[in-house]
């Protein structure tokens, strides 16, 4: 059997790897972007000089040959579902028995005047990074007037701000909302990041939208106008207002599309033997509380693994489990486990503790009735995923979670632990007297987690 995968991001690569683990099918991966599958989330570190491009490669060069994973660097222009054939950019065709679409996203552009000028771009592909490097020359050439403007208060926006900051380039950061990423982060965390962005000297402008980008005679960006009528001279404008599935080339194919490629719970598209995974897949019936398109590293990885099972004959539904995600905002690491909505629903209560210095916080959400914990939001503190997941899955009451909170702590050894402060705060607010009953210990964690196996088997 011949399996063709369009895209070599984490979803496509993981699908290939897990199919190979179970079978000897022929596997071909096609990517226009990069010969070497690499970690998209690490692009920023290449620009900042933390890493070289080869450090971001998912596997060493010998891996692909050793595992007989064929690669083609080209673009797929058309999918012919009747002939089971792909038309590539160079005019060649490629037959498939099964096709996995994992073609990812592309940055959104909302038709702003000037959005096609030189020096205006998003950040998704390797090529975006290369053009950012090119623009950096222009920015630095401006000397004292050097400035980059970034539009869009999300994860890529703040990454871009950090990237320019690392090269000592002044940044103006336009965010439409009244606080950074507050569609996702609860108010306190969002405000912490506002402060943190500003303490890096970034010119953060909340409640501000892009109105127009203007260019100079050479067609390069020269100014950005906001909806407040402000004019900002700059040599770069980053548009980081989200991404959309990159499915233009499938429009004529007959595969059912909406915003993304529509798939059922087995990640099958409307057409037989064609699957879609990762950023470009749109679930027809997502689990409750989950979005139909989740353009997130982790979901792409899980979808790749799931579709591999199905293709290898073990039909497996995509069950992403308890939601988790992570990011880093300049120096503040962010982890979330479970459901932590930006606006607290009426049936939930929240315990929010923040370090006096304002760069660390822990939030635990739990149900008003019965106290079952539903989610953890961590800023600048590391928690263990398996422990948090287990508490959420088993609907452990908040009091019991707090007693054992040290089990979740994943900060390095000797780091100050804040469990007792968190407990004190809960006790004060609720007139309770909960005490820490366990210390941070790997052995206790092992025992606690192996418990899970026994319970779920029984």
């Amino acid at each position: 059997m011949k399996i063709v995968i369009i895209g070599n991001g984490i979803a496509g690569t993981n699908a290939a790897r897990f199919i190979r683990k179970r079978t000897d099918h022929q596997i071909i991966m096609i990517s226009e972007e990069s010969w070497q599958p690499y970690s998209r989330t690490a692009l920023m570190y290449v620009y900042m000089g933390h890493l070289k491009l080869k450090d971001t490669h998912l596997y060493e060069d010998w891996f692909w040959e050793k595992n007989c994973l064929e690669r083609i660097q080209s673009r797929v222009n058309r999918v012919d579902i009747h002939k089971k054939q792909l038309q590539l950019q160079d005019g060649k065709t490629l037959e498939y028995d099964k096709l996995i679409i994992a073609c990812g996203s592309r940055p959104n552009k909302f038709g702003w005047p000037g959005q096609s000028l030189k020096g205006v771009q998003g950040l998704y592909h390797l090529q975006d990074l290369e053009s950012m490097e090119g623009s950096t020359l222009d920015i630095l050439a401006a000397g004292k007037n050097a400035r980059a403007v970034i539009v869009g208060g999300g994860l890529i926006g703040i990454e871009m701000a950090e990237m320019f900051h690392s090269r000592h380039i002044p940044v103006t950061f336009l965010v439409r909302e009244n606080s950074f990423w507050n569609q996702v982060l609860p108010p306190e965390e969002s405000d912490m990041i506002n402060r943190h962005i500003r303490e890096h000297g970034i010119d953060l402008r909340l409640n501000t939208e892009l109105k127009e980008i203007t260019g100079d005679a050479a067609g390069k960006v020269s100014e950005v106008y906001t909806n407040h009528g402000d004019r900002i001279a700059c040599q770069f404008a980053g548009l980081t207002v989200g991404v959309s599935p990159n499915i233009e080339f499938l429009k004529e194919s007959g595969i059912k599309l909406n915003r993304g490629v529509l798939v059922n719970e087995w990640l099958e598209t409307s057409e037989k033997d064609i699957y879609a995974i990762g950023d470009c897949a749109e679930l027809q019936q997502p689990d409750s509380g989950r979005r139909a398109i989740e353009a997130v590293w982790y979901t792409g990885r899980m979808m790749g693994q799931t579709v591999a099972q199905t293709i290898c004959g073990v039909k497996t539904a995509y069950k992403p489990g308890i939601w988790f995600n992570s990011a880093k905002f300049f120096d503040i690491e962010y982890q979330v486990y479970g459901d932590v909505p930006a606006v607290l629903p009426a049936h939930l209560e929240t315990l929010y503790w923040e370090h006096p210095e304002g760069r660390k916080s822990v939030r635990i959400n739990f149900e008003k009735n019965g106290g079952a914990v539903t989610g953890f939001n961590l800023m600048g503190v590391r928690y263990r995923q398996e422990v948090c997941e287990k508490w959420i899955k088993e609907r452990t009451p908040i009091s019991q979670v707090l007693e054992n909170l040290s089990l979740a702590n994943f900060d390095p050894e000797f780091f100050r632990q804040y469990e007792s402060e968190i407990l004190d705060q809960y006790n004060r607010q609720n007139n309770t007297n909960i005490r820490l009953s366990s210390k941070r210990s790997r052995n206790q964690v092992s025992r606690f987690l192996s418990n899970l196996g026994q319970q779920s088997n029984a």
Partner: protein
Amino acid sequence: MNNQPLESISIAQPHPVNTSLRQKMALALVAVGLLFVLVTWASRQVWNPLLSLTGSLVTLSVGTLWYAFETYKGSLPGIKNNGVMFRSLSNRGVWGWMVGVFITAFYVCLYWFPKMLGGLVQMFDPLSMFIRGRAADQWFVYGTFYTLAVLLLGVKFMLKYRHNRYQQIRTISVMFFQLGFSFLIPAWMLLMNQPEFYFTYFWPLKYDYLFPNTVNWLTNSYAHLGVFLVFWGAVMSFIAVPVLTYFFGKRWYCSWVCGCGALAETAGDSFRTLSDKSLSAWKLERWLIHSVLVFIIITTILLWANSWKQGAILGEYSMGFSKTYGFLIGSMFSGVIGTGFYPIFGNRVWCRFGCPQAALLGIFQKFFSRFRITTNGGQCISCGNCSTYCEMGIDVKSYAQRGQDIVRASCVGCGICSAVCPRGVLRLENGSVDLMDRAKYPE
């Protein structure tokens, strides 16, 4: 200049921006200190050793510390590896090669042409008289520079990782052991006409501590103290090493106590990205390091058998054995390649490919230790920071991205992978409950 952009993609030459005037002044001070050193190195007769020594050490120290403070004072605490991949020094550029050649030349003089160190040894007489009660020799010069490098660049390292208590405490520990146990105590023992003994080095790293010659010399010449020192060495080698490694992994020694580790973790910090992460380097590592260990074990056994048979086995070859080893491994490998080539091969070449102590500790760590690096569920984003900043060349990412805990013989437990991970995925831990499942694949 022409091939750099291909690797880093950087075409904008970002590095030279923003070196402050104060940083430049601090560096100038370091240069003055170096000039003192070079001038005395070149001269036969040192003009006023005390003044020269004070002048050079004070300017070197003040300059280095000042530069370090200036570098980190303006930035918020956190991982700031900005520009590491663009810098000449940390990237095998012109500065890297120059520093490499300079340190290598120093080692060559030190080991084989000590006379060529000229007035440098004489300059250290006042200090040596003060703490050891005797004139300086080239080893004292080396020991002083070595300790100074650990202390000064240790402070720089602590400033860089001021948000990370594991790194801070670990660095205080290596600074303490270097200054106390590898510099002052051996010097004071000499001052009191006792053997110059290093309590923190044991067989098989300090291979001759358990050779018959040394044992006889210590027990015959120093009576009770000599017996104690031999006893100490044996206890450390055969009891402390396995026991402490069972509890904490090899890090208790390699990145907390050992002097080689001390230099690698402080002065060598800028070069940690240069270690080869490839599978083939790992293969080479396993062959080399275990060969050295086997060689030492056989040599030790032969020497004892020979001594027991009163020289009947080896005859006059017995000295040859230890001399060959001393030249090839002690000087060439651990000194010239191990340290001189920091800017070329990375800061742990000796520890990774050559050190017999590391080999032994590694075997315990791999098969019988509570230590592992835990991967936090499925949180890895495969960014590669952990592998890139691993000085031992471990491809940490290859484990983390599969959700697998890391149990590797070579890991010295420096904790930098955990520090640079942007998603909080890695944690150094000790636990006995799942001792044999430490490296198991998650389902």
